[in-house]
Structures are given as structure tokens and as C-alpha cells.
């Protein structure tokens, strides 16, 4: 137990300007924070490095210890002084406490046909970060935007973050790997903290920057800092800035980088890169995660965990049939372009704070600064803004819905009619999807094939275990839903225009609501043509509705199949074949396209040839999705999260990333 006798406390009038705290009295600061019921997290020596961990006393701090850092190399060294913060950022990032590596999100239980999903409360016990540097604070700011700055809030992060008290420390040295100056995040601490310390020979210059900070500061045994001390502090930090210089000139970097997607250097760095993922996990801003389920043997209870993942892992961008970024070079390019370029489009800032962790902790010493300078010459490029935000939903929050009807559409495809869905679905609109979960299975994005007053329909093709399990659901059974998610088909833009709908296979499901909407208000649209392709006549979905749309609803329905027997007198050939000779005036036309990516490319090309402007050719994309709201990072495509900014995009929006390999 610590005994504190500080005559000054409580009696001293609040200081004007910075105070001076004797080094030994830092213990008092620690004790005060702990008395507030906070765990104090600070630097301490462990396994030959200075990590962040819970500390209780000054003795836990690395007194008189500094570090040497270089690409792929980190060593501690004795300093010839008693400084407690005479080092630079180490392997640990503060996200360990605000965004832990492993978080239980939801407990799902199954009892007969009843299922339930219970969100897990975050551990929000108060903590204090002692020794956060400028770059660390900038990193927290970036996470604030990612997790709480858009329409979507991550409740776990929000709760943890709200309980952090930050004691910042000015950098009085720099490592060879630092480049905060280039990223505009440091070395000077500029806001985002409660208390700021600058270490001097005898102690600390101390300033408060928040109400809580001032309250605490007033309890400390301080004297006013002398002008010399203030000048000394400022001079040291200025010296640090000078030492770092400007290793990565940042002006126009995003555009320069995106203009070099085909640079040979990507392949060269992939020779050295082991794609181990260390850079992304050491990075204080990387936020990609993956869900895993742990189930008891009876399958009656399963816990859904969220854990750190990395775009460098081959499995990260996997969908049925392979990975979207099959080559290491694709994955390195994804990481670098996201961090330094497309992050701007998503969150209005760079994703890098220049802390240098990815350089020091790269086992093979790849230096991101060298790669950037080698790859990105000055070429401008015009960024575009993402379109409408869909309805919000948190990643751990499932609503259970009940199956009231099932319809076998084809041999492998079933339509489920669900009730008891989230009221939000009543506001849902065409093209949106839901994250659908069964206990023990990873949640899957399924597009909504019909909106009903008291529920929705999902048309699911049983391809993998989870989808097969969903197709096998019987009337009365339950499943978990999140949503509706994603944006919608821009029907408003189709009003008064000729609408062409081109789709294939299961792709008709997300467009079915569009057709319902059209039938509901047919007069608002010009000619409406539906071109629908399937593998064989037996694979056509919604046959009765196709019949009706064509016969009585004033929609020109053209069907084609890839192959058929002689008894089929309809068309045979790919779907574009249905209109690639049509002599159209594309000028007043808008197109909605959904199907396999190759088919959409063929269609887009043909439509463009008919004179339909790229901005009015809309496609819906499929990517690996886990959170559905742009928090897990799986579905990134260039600057977009397909789940949040899509799934519907115009060809104009996508530009040349549509159909490019490895994006």
C-alpha cells in the first residue's frame, strides 16, 4: 500500500499554465488514477522490449532504459540517465485495450426450433493510458472515426473508449523508423489527451487539457514550471521533429499511389514480403476482424468471437471459388493502398500515423517508407464519393425471425418467408441484404428477395454447409437476422426512363423487389425490359411471377438459357445475346444488372455499346462479408466497403477497378 503525504494537495490554488512534477511524484499521479478505480496501463520491460501492461508503481516503468529501432530490428539499451520515458513506441499499441484482439460478441443458443442471440456486454472497466505518444493519440482518433464516426457504431469499442483517461507524453527522442512528421500526426502532442507530460532531467512539465485532467492536476504536488523548463521542453520536441525530417512527402500521396496499381514494384516487394501479417497487427489503426464460432458438442450454445485478422492472410478475401486477392502482391497492394489512399475516401484521413511499428516489427525489415517513395510518383486522380448510407445495425445484435413458409424454387434453391423480423425491414428497400445467422454457423449476407408488411423473403441457394442448413429450415424454425443492410437500387433515377434489367441465375433474387415496385407503379416508368438468363430451363427462378410480369404487368420479359433440350423453344445463349443486336437509344435508359461478375462485365460492355452512360449502369457486387457495415474490412474493394457503400454501384463509380484482378 502506498503512503502519500503531500501538504500541497487540495490547498494549492490552480496553477496558471504548466506545472512541474518531480519524477518521484509521478507515483502520486499513478495512485490517484488507481484510486479513481482505473487500471493504469503503461510502459514496462518484458521479454527484451518495452511493452504496455498494467502497472502499479514507478518501479514498473523502464527507468533509464532506451531502445534502438531499425527495419526488422528492436533492442533495448541502457541510458545514462534516470528517465522513465526515454524510449520510443514499442511493440504494443493501445488498441489492445480499446479494440482487443479477441472479443466475444454474441452468445447464440438453440433449443429445439427456438434460437436466441444475446449480445455480450463489453468490458468497460475504466483504464488510464500512461505514456501515450502523439502518434498513438492520432491512432485512437482514427479508430474513433472508424468505429463511431459513421452511421454505424461499434458498441464494444465505444464503451471501452469512453472509459479511457489519457496521460500523454511528449516524444523527447525519435527512432530511425519514425515518420509522424510526414503523416502530420506528431511529434508534438496536439489534443486528444487529458494530461500531458514532457520529461525533463529532474521531472516532468505537466499540463491538463480536459476537465478531468484539471481536476487530477489540482491534486498533484506541483510548482509552476520555470520559463527555462518550458523553453527546454519545447526545444527538445522541436529537435525531435528536426531529427525525423520528412521521410515520406505526403502531398497528393493517395492519388499518386492509386495511379500506380500496375507498378512492377508490387511484384518485387512480394518477393521479400512473407505475408505474415505482423505489420497489420502491430499497426495501431488496422481494424480488420474475423468471426469464429465456438460451440459445445451438443450444439445448444455457441459463442461468436471477433478477433483481429489481416488482409495478408490468404483466407481473408476468400469466397466460394477462391480468394479475391490470390497473389501476395495483391495483398501487399491492398494494405498499402488502403492505409495511405482509399482510407481517405472511407474515413477522411490517412490510415497511417507514422509510428513506424510496421517497419520495426516486420520480421524481414520491409520499410513502408521506401516502398511508398518507390511506387508513388506524382500523378493526379479524381476521387468519387460513396452513395447513400443504409440503415444502421451493430455487429453483435441479431433479431430472431421465424420461418412461416418455404418454397423450393429449383433443385438447390429455396425461398424462405420470414416474420418477426426487425421493424427496420419495413423501411428496407430494393437491393438491400441481411446478415443471416444460424447458431454455430458464420453469418452470411443474403439479399432480400421480397419485402412484406410483416417480414421479408430470402431466396437462398444451398452451396455450402451454412446455406444448405438455411435451405433445410422448416416452417416454425428460427434464424437470426441483422439489417436491412447495404444501399439500394436507385429506382428514383429510373422514374421516367426506360429501364433494362439484366440478370442471371440467383441474381434475380435481389432484383425481384425492383420488379414488385415497378408493377406497383408501372406508369412511372418508360419501357421496362427484363433479360434473365439461367443455366437450364429448370434453373429459372420465380417461374409463375416471370409469367405474370410478361403477360399482364407490361414488362418485356426475355429469357435465355445456356443449354436446353429440343423441347425448349425459348432462347439459348448468354444473356447479352438477347439484346446485343437491339438497336436502342441508350440515352434515356438506365440499367440494373446482377449476376456473376463476368456476366456483369459482358453486360456492361454491351450496354455501353448501346449508348447507356456508365453512371446509369448499376451492378451489385458480391464479396466476403462478415459485419455487413464496414467494420470488419473483409469486403473492401478499392475505396469502397461493398457491404456499406454497396452492394449496388454504378459502373461510373467503380471506374477501372471493376473487373480488375486482385482488388
Amino acid at each position, binding site marked *: 500500500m502506498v503512503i502519500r503525504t503531500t501538504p500541497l494537495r487540495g490547498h494549492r490554488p490552480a496553477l496558471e499554465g504548466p506545472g512541474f512534477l518531480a519524477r518521484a511524484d509521478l507515483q502520486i499521479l499513478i495512485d490517484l488514477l488507481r484510486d479513481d478505480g482505473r487500471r493504469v496501463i503503461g510502459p514496462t520491460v518484458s521479454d527484451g522490449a518495452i511493452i504496455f501492461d498494467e502497472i502499479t508503481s514507478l518501479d514498473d516503468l523502464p527507468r533509464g532504459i532506451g531502445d534502438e529501432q531499425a527495419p526488422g530490428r528492436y533492442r533495448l539499451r541502457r541510458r545514462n540517465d534516470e528517465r522513465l520515458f526515454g524510449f520510443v513506441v514499442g511493440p504494443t499499441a493501445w488498441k489492445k485495450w480499446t479494440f482487443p484482439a479477441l472479443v466475444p460478441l454474441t452468445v447464440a443458443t438453440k433449443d429445439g426450433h427456438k434460437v436466441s442471440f444475446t449480445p455480450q456486454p463489453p468490458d468497460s472497466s475504466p483504464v488510464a493510458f500512461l505514456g501515450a505518444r502523439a502518434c498513438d493519440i492520432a491512432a485512437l482518433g482514427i479508430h474513433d472515426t472508424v468505429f463511431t464516426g459513421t452511421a454505424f457504431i461499434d458498441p464494444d469499442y465505444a464503451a471501452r473508449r469512453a472509459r479511457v483517461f489519457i496521460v500523454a507524453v511528449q516524444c523527447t527522442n525519435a527512432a530511425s523508423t519514425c515518420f509522424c512528421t510526414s503523416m502530420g500526426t506528431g511529434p508534438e502532442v496536439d489534443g486528444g489527451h487529458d494530461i500531458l507530460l514532457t520529461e525533463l532531467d529532474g521531472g516532468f512539465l505537466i499540463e491538463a487539457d480536459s476537465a478531468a485532467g484539471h481536476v487530477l492536476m489540482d491534486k498533484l504536488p506541483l510548482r509552476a514550471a520555470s520559463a527555462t523548463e518550458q523553453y527546454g521542453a519545447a526545444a527538445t520536441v522541436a529537435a525531435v521533429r528536426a531529427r525525423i525530417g520528412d521521410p515520406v512527402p505526403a502531398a497528393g500521396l493517395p492519388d499518386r499511389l492509386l495511379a500506380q496499381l500496375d507498378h512492377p514494384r508490387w511484384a518485387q516487394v512480394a518477393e521479400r514480403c512473407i505475408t505474415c501479417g505482423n505489420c497489420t497487427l502491430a499497426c495501431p489503426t488496422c481494424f480488420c476482424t474475423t468471426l469464429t464460432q465456438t460451440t459445445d458438442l451438443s450444439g445448444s450454445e455457441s459463442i461468436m468471437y471477433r478477433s483481429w485478422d489481416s488482409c495478408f492472410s490468404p483466407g481473408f478475401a476468400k469466397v*466460394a*471459388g477462391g480468394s479475391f486477392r490470390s497473389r501476395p502482391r495483391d495483398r501487399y497492394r491492398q494494405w498499402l493502398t488502403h492505409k495511405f489512399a482509399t482510407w481517405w475516401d472511407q474515413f477522411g484521413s490517412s490510415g497511417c500515423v507514422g509510428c513506424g511499428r510496421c517497419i520495426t516489427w516486420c520480421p524481414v525489415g520491409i520499410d513502408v517508407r521506401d516502398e511508398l517513395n518507390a511506387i508513388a510518383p506524382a500523378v493526379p486522380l479524381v476521387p468519387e464519393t460513396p452513395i447513400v448510407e443504409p440503415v444502421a445495425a451493430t455487429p453483435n445484435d441479431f433479431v430472431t425471425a421465424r420461418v412461416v413458409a418455404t418454397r423450393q424454387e429449383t433443385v*438447390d434453391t429455396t425461398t424462405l418467408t420470414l416474420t418477426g423480423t426487425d421493424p427496420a425491414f419495413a423501411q428496407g428497400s430494393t437491393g438491400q441484404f441481411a446478415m443471416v445467422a444460424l447458431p454455430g454457423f458464420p453469418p452470411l449476407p443474403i439479399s432480400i428477395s421480397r419485402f412484406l408488411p410483416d417480414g421479408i423473403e430470402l431466396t437462398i*441457394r444451398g*452451396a*455450402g*454447409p451454412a446455406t444448405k442448413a438455411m435451405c433445410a429450415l422448416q416452417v416454425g424454425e428460427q434464424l437470426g437476422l441483422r439489417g436491412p443492410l447495404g444501399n439500394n437500387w436507385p429506382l428514383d433515377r429510373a422514374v421516367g426512363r426506360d429501364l433494362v434489367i439484366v440478370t*442471371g*441465375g*440467383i441474381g434475380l433474387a435481389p432484383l425481384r423487389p425492383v420488379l414488385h415496385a415497378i408493377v406497383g407503379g408501372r406508369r412511372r416508368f418508360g419501357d421496362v425490359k427484363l433479360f434473365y*438468363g*439461367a*443455366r437450364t430451363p429448370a*434453373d429459372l427462378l420465380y417461374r409463375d411471377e416471370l409469367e405474370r410480369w410478361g403477360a399482364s404487368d407490361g414488362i418485356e420479359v426475355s429469357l*435465355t438459357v*445456356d*443449354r*436446353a*433440350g*429440343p423441347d*425448349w*423453344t*425459348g*432462347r*439459348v*445463349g*448468354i444473356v*447479352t*445475346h*438477347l439484346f*446485343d*443486336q437491339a*438497336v436502342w437509344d441508350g440515352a434515356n435508359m438506365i440499367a440494373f444488372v446482377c*449476376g*456473376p461478375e*463476368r*456476366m456483369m462485365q*459482358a453486360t456492361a460492355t454491351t450496354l455501353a455499346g448501346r449508348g447507356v452512360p456508365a453512371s446509369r449502369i448499376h451492378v451489385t457486387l458480391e464479396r466476403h462479408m462478415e459485419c455487413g457495415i464496414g467494420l470488419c474490412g473483409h469486403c473492401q474493394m478499392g475505396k469502397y466497403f461493398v457491404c456499406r457503400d454497396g452492394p449496388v454501384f454504378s459502373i461510373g463509380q467503380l471506374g477501372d477497378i471493376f473487373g480488375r484482378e486482385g482488388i
Partner: protein
Amino acid sequence: MNETAALVAALNTSWFASGLSEKAQTRLAELGRRFTAEPGTELFREGESSDTFGILVHGRVALRTLVPERGDITILTVEPGDVYLWSALVPPYRASSTGTAIEPIESIIFEGAALRAALRDECELAAALYPRVLVAVARRLYATRLQMLDLFATQQVKEW
């Protein structure tokens, strides 16, 4: 109007010929003649010699091929305005599939020897016609490629 004018008019409705110069259209009309058939009519048979070039004006023609043990498989249906028969331009002037009218059809057909002679002697006509043929062939090729991809097949994901 006279037969030629009528054929020119018919040609103009077709995607294939509408782009051609008036001169080329007229010349084609002189070379071609109108042809009609009832649904079910077999227009040409896979492997048999078929020294004709044909442009479909109305109706639909199914191109089929016989696969042992699977029977006749329709590989493509040709829409109005497209070329449905070009074996007259490609030695050995045999049909590569069986063409059957699945609707009442009307087409314009050209006798092979005459057409080839004209194309050989009249550079202007050849220069006008061949690019259109090439586009038709290229498009057919691309479509076939996509069909081969079997895009809508269920990707059977491995159970484990």
C-alpha cells in the same frame, strides 16, 4: 416497289446489314433472295454441305448439335437481324450445326458461288461485308466462351 428495293428495306431492318452503304446494300439485294419456312423446318444439317449465306429477318432459328447419348442439344438460338448461316464463306462449305426454324421464319439467302465470286471481284463489297461478318463471328465466339464458363452453375462448396 421492286423486289430489290424490298430486299434492301428488309436488309435495313437487320442489325447485320443496316450499317452497310446504300451501294453495298443494293448489290447484296441483287445477289440475294427471300426465303421463308414453317416452324420445325430443318434448314440445314450438321456436317452436310450447305453452300449458302443467310441473314435472318423474322422468326428464330435454333442451332443444334447432336451429342451421343444426350441427343440434340440447342447451343444457340439466332435472333432476327443476325447471320444464321455462313458456311458459304468458310470452306469446305459444310454446316457446323443443324439449323431448325422454331418460329415461322423469313430470311435473305445468298447462293455461295455467286456471292464468293462477287466478293472476289468487287473489293468495295468485300471490304464492306467482311467486317460485319467478322463482328458476327467474334460475338458468337465470345458468347460461346461465356457459355462454356457455365456461369450460373452452383459452386458446390466442399463440405469440409
